[in-house]
């Protein structure tokens, strides 16, 4: 097999950057190979993929040294549109890559741009619909698709250009578990049908388990340098990569490393025999973490009854939702895209009003939200939007954090001092002098969270707190949320991250089709696999493992993390 991609001493430095994004990278990928590029946020994965089709440096300016060849062509000297039929690049966020008003029109966009004859364009449309599994949605607007379907559409549109190399930049990030499975299935089918196709997928690390069976080689990069290159087993067995924080570990790797399993399992079924033998060996010593959420002893701070919301023309976003949020709890609101989570959260923050004609009611601390003055409502409920940059305008982080206090009447100097004290208390004072536009995505999420939290609302609603963050950044953000909860705040998170839900939430509310499908502690909710499947939700790996262990041995191990699992099964000994 000849070389599909060849990088020799490839170095990319963005203007005004102190260090290169890619630093003397040497990499050979043969035709027909399926390779995963793994690394943390900022490791250089996206830069590498965008260099493959010339976006870097032709559109995103950068100083490029060394050589980058794709299918024998030096891509650094070619325009991306000339390379599009050679390298198909799928971006992380499908929203940015969809341009047309219907699915089929979006698939034909690339072939039309290539100037192919009409019959060929229609043939490619047929292929794109087939490969993306969207034939039935061909006439639909992409806005009506789920996250997984949108990513499938982009993949279909890219593959309709018949690229030699398919490159995907974190295609699973931001998708719910079902969306991830859908995308992986599509990619696996494509790879099986096209044995000569070269596929390169970047991944932060936590979704590596989804890629097993698709990629046969993993390349880990860190700070723009190659740190490991080997088979999936070799890389996953390299504990140093995970222990040193160079790559986010998937949960099965965490479990395996924590329990000292002889080899890294690829699936829950592979891990089960080892975990089972440990549990049976220590049956008497196994201590389960029994969740104790005695709701009757808690005071509801938000009471929702029969809440309806209909978006025009006739979309039932909320269809009679009744639920409570209890003071001081950490609640996760989960459900697939379009299930009604965000609409419900907007109602809780007073941003939307119930649709007329129903008997909808929302009480905040016993008072009707409709009769509550805006200023009073803000004391009760704070809301952190999903895209942190949608609210930033100040020059420094300290000014950004202080803004909410200034708007509540504090003099500027007092507010800045308050911001400093608050940042010290929550250990982000290192960010205060930084320029807001230069913050990384994870730093921006921290700033957005505390810019609202500083007003100390009784309830803090956070929409996808760690969207796009890697394992380390995500844990940091959720730990910040837990710290805020411990200070007395009630936390409501809207999330697709089942692993963090299990780890941090005290209670889970599952939404589906505008209704509450399930409510309860995370252990009991994630046991309802069949019910969850109605909402297209897949429990996290740890819950699946626990469920199988319980059904085979009768032993219940309610662990939130791999470390807790180890403590329960084998005690604190490492």
């Amino acid at each position, binding site marked *: 097999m000849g070389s599909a991609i060849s990088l020799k001493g490839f170095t990319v430095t963005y203007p005004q950057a102190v260090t290169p994004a890619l630093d003397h990278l040497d990499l050979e990928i043969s035709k027909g190979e399926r390779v995963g590029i793994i690394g943390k946020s900022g490791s250089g994965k996206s830069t590498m993929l965008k260099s493959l*089709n010339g*976006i870097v440096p*032709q*559109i*995103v300016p950068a100083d490029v040294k060394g050589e980058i060849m794709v299918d024998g062509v030096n891509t650094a000297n070619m*325009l*991306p*549109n*000339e390379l*599009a*039929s050679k390298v*198909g*690049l799928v*971006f992380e*966020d499908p*929203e*940015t*890559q*969809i*341009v*047309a*008003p*219907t699915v089929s029109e979006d698939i*034909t*966009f*690339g072939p*039309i*741009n*290539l*100037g*192919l*004859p*009409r019959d060929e*364009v*229609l043939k490619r449309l047929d292929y794109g619909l087939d490969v993306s599994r969207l034939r039935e949605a061909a006439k639909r*607007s992409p*806005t009506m698709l789920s996250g997984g379907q949108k990513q499938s559409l982009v993949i279909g*549109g*890219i593959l309709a*250009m018949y690229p030699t190399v398919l490159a995907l930049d974190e295609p699973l990030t931001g998708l719910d578990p079902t969306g991830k499975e859908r995308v992986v299935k599509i990619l696996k089918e494509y790879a099986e049908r096209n044995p000569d196709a070269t596929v390169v997928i970047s991944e932060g690390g936590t979704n590596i388990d989804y890629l097993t069976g698709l990629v046969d080689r993993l390349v880990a990069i860190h700070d723009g340098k190659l740190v490991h290159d080997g088979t999936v087993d070799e890389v996953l067995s390299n504990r140093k990569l995970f222990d040193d924080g160079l790559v986010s570990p998937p949960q099965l790797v965490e479990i395996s490393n924590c329990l000292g399993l002889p080899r890294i399992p690829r699936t829950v079924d592979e891990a089960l025999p080892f975990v089972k033998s440990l549990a049976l060996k220590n049956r008497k010593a196994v201590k389960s973490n029994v969740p104790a959420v005695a709701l009757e002893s808690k005071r509801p701070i938000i009471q929702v009854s029969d809440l309806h919301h209909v978006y*025009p*023309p006739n979309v039932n976003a909320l269809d009679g939702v009744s639920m409570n949020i209890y003071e001081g709890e950490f609640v996760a609101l989960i459900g697939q895209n379009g299930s009604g989570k965000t609409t419900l959260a907007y109602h809780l*923050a007073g*941003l939307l009003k119930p649709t007329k004609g129903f008997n909808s009611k929302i009480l905040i601390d016993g008072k009707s939200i409709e009769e509550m003055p805006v200023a009073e409502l*803000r004391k009760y409920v*704070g*809301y952190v*939007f999903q895209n942190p*940059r*949608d*609210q*930033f*305008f100040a020059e420094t982080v300290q000014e950004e954090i202080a*803004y*909410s206090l200034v*708007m509540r009447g504090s003099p500027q100097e007092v507010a800045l001092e308050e911001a400093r004290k608050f940042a010290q208390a929550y250990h982000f004072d290192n960010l205060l002098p930084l320029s807001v*536009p230069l913050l990384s995505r994870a730093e921006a999420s921290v700033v957005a969270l505390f*810019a*609202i939290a500083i*007003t100390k609302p009784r309830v803090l609603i956070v929409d996808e707190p760690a969207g796009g963050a890697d394992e380390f950044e995500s844990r940091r953000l959720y730990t910040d949320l837990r710290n805020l909860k411990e200070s007395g705040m009630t936390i409501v998170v809207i999330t697709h991250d089942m692993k963090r839900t299990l780890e941090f939430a005290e209670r889970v509310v599952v939404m589906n089709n505008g209704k509450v499908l399930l409510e309860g502690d995370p252990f009991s909710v994630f046991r309802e696999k069949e019910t969850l499947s109605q909402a297209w939700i897949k429990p996290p790996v740890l819950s699946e493992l626990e469920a199988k262990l319980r059904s085979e041995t009768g032993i219940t191990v309610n662990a939130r993390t791999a470390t807790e699992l180890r403590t329960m099964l084998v005690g604190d000994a490492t």
Partner: protein
Amino acid sequence: MQYEEKATAIHRLNTTTKVTIFFGLVILASVWWDIRFLALLLLVEVPIFAIGRVPLGWLKGMGVVFIISMIAFVPTALLTTNPLSFHVLPPSFTSTQVWVWVSAANSPTHSMIGFTFGNLYWLGALELRLLIVLLAAVSFVYTTSSSDLVQWLLRRGVPYTIGYVVMVVMRFIPILIQDSTKVIWAQKLRGWDIQSRNPAHAVAQIKPIAIPLTARILRLIDDTEQSAASRAFGHSKGTAIIIEKVTPKDYAIAGAAGILAVLGIIGLVFFNIGII
């Protein structure tokens, strides 16, 4: 506000027919000032809006445009009190005063402001023209796929780049409207509000909205450029893939719309029809 795939009679019309109706209405609404004739255009438009099943919620957005337009139009109307500004309407009608203020006879700039039948008629015509144009635009956007429009332009030799810009604008305007709402919500939740009547302060208070929104637009432009390039945009002149189907109904409707528009302009030029 974006196209939705539906099987209504308006959606099914040929793009040429829809373009002819749209431009016919917009051209006549742009040249006519007589409320009676403008009302006729509205009578044509309302069924199009209804048959095309354009969501009524879109009218809310139009309400905002009306309020903003009033801010600009009313002061102009107040100053247009001279009955000689009207060529066709009788002076006895246009000079009838509803409420006026006349400056002192010896003032250096002797003037009269206020409402007369004439300027109220003019104001009504202006708002009606705006309504007709907006209704035509939303009906067109809702019933015509941007790809169909791009293909239509492509077949008529219009450069593909122009068609693409149309498509991207139609795709991203709803996204930007949503994003703007979120930015405003995000800042309102932090306590932001325009409270000051002092224009300088009000402008300063726009900063928390303007900066994130500008940043969002710039990000969207960057993303769109990269996305288009990754999908070979600019590689060729594009391919026209839609074969236009013109039914007898299309011929009849487009023909009628075209003839009426031409007759309207002839009437205006030679018989003062539509002029006030």
